[in-house]
């Protein structure tokens, strides 16, 4: 089964896990991609290959293994520069994931720049990792945290943003480029334009956008940008913080330790050049190297193709799901304005019960608050079920999923 855009049969061959059976004999239908994606064999092999052939600590030794490992590690940085169209490799900082990236900004930039009565603005559809760090920061600084609301269509209420910006006290606006619950693609360029006009810094959480859309940082024009490798075919334990060089230069270090220093003396220490100033300690070398294989894979397919394929799947899924009586789909229905993440509730079946039931048919979806409890309160639900797609998913799989939803209805006598 394939959409017109990409050859899915070929792609699926690269993902060994898709051949596995769950619950004894059910083919795995993996629709939990917004949580983490599966990995192609190219990524798995890149990691093994590192350990099998040139494992070494990096940057500081002159022996051959160390040189090979250092080159491979830094090579990933160069690939990322191109992939998101950054200006320079000095702006690419490797972290554990989006969460650490945002916390780094809160600690190293936020604690210097956000003061009493200042305002940090976020949105009601943020992931906890783009809320809690700002709660901690504003609490410490006696500053305020404000939320841009979400309308019934899953779109941000930009009037509220304007209202906050007008106070002249906003220091940072932090939002995700794509909601991990509603799938809404944020009108990021418009938000950033409005913030720039007022001289306000902008952090964009790209955890859900980079894996699924072409991201061009020069066009976007934000100040901080964060994403995770594991949501885009890469390994767990790696992510990226991108920030403008001028900002990074002015920021205090986050973690202190090896690699991030220039000279350590007993009572005073100077910092290494960018990006190393923010990479303290032995980094996650193997997985940074593995990440390059993931980027290669996505570039070979082409991000436009990735997007087209997901739009086709999403449209297909929304069409079929809408026909189920008693289902409620959340957010935008226009697939041009949303990504391949569909949150829903089916009658009074609690999402956990639904997920347990359809798991028996091999279908893996996520249920719960999706680390977005503020949005759950806004939607007035305690949880939703969420199906999310990626390049290896097929319409056949969506059919299995839909059939399984009908079985759940039956079990719940709906």
């Amino acid at each position: 089964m394939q959409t017109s855009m990409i050859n899915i049969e070929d792609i699926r061959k690269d993902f060994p896990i898709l051949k596995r059976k769950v619950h004894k004999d059910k083919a795995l239908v993996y629709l939990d991609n917004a949580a983490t994606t599966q990995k192609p064999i190219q990524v798995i092999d890149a990691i093994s290959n590192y350990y099998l052939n040139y494992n070494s600590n990096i940057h500081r030794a002159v022996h051959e293994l160390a040189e090979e490992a250092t080159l491979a590690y830094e090579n990933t940085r160069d690939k990322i520069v191109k992939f998101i169209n950054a200006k320079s490799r000095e702006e690419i900082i490797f972290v554990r994931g989006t969460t650490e990236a945002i916390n780094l900004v809160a600690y190293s930039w936020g604690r210097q720049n956000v003061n009493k009565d200042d305002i940090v603005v976020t949105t009601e559809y943020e992931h906890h990792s783009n809320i809690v760090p700002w709660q901690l920061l504003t609490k410490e600084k006696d500053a305020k945290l404000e939320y841009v609301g979400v309308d019934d269509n899953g779109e941000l209420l930009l009037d509220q943003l304007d209202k906050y910006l007008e106070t002249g006290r906003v220091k940072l606006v932090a939002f995700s480029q794509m909601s991990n619950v509603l799938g809404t693609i944020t009108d990021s360029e418009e938000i950033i334009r409005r913030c720039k006009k007022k001289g306000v810094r902008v952090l964009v959480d790209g955890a859900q956008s980079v894996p699924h859309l072409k991201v061009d940082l020069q066009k976007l024009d934000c100040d901080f940008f964060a994403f995770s490798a594991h949501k885009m075919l890469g390994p767990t334990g790696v992510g990226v913080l991108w920030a403008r060089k001028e900002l990074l230069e002015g920021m205090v270090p986050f973690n202190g330790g090896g690699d991030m220093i220039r000279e350590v003396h007993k009572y005073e220490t100077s910092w290494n050049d960018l990006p190393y100033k923010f990479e303290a300690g032995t980094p996650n070398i193997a997985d940074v190297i593995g990440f390059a294989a993931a980027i290669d894979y996505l570039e070979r397919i082409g991000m436009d193709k990735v997007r087209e394929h997901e739009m086709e799947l999403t449209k297909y899924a929304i069409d079929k799901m809408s026909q189920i009586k008693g289902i409620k789909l959340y957010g935008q229905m226009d697939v041009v304005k949303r990504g391949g993440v569909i949150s829903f509730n089916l009658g009074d079946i609690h999402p956990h019960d639904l997920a347990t039931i359809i798991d028996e048919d091999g279908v893996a979806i996520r249920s719960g608050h999706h680390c977005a409890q503020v949005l759950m309160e806004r939607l007035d639900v305690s949880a939703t079920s969420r199906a999310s797609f990626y390049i290896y998913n097929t319409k056949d799989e969506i059919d299995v999923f839909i059939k399984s939803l009908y079985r759940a209805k039956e079990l719940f006598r709906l």
Partner: protein
Amino acid sequence: MSSADIYREIILDYYRNPRNYGKITNPDIAQRDSNPLCGDELEMHLNIKENKVADVKFTGKGCAISQASASMLTELIMGKNFEEVKNLSKEDILDNLGLHDLGPARIKCALLSLKVLKSGLYSYLSEKLKDTESADKIKEEASGLY
């Protein structure tokens, strides 16, 4: 166990028509907890009289398993001797629900109500009865549940 076994008529009935749903004004024990992983919430209220559970109610949001479990637990303990209630085990709850072999994620749903109950008893024992020994024992049981 398969969902057909889990979501039997009786579980769905307790989920949709929970017995003892609500609050007690001025309860002797009021305990609330939530499951940080799934967001399920549960609050239990109890009145203790003459060493017996004189009244018990619960409110909550969550899946069929957690809500049915809470409701069936209230029925189980209503009128029971305080000692008996203190000694309730994980197995007692699962037997009462008729749910066994739940996976590690879903067993937490079944046991949330017992956890809330035990935490409530802990506060009651330590603060009102000043029985720190029993209190500590039950606190340990609660944290060892999952």
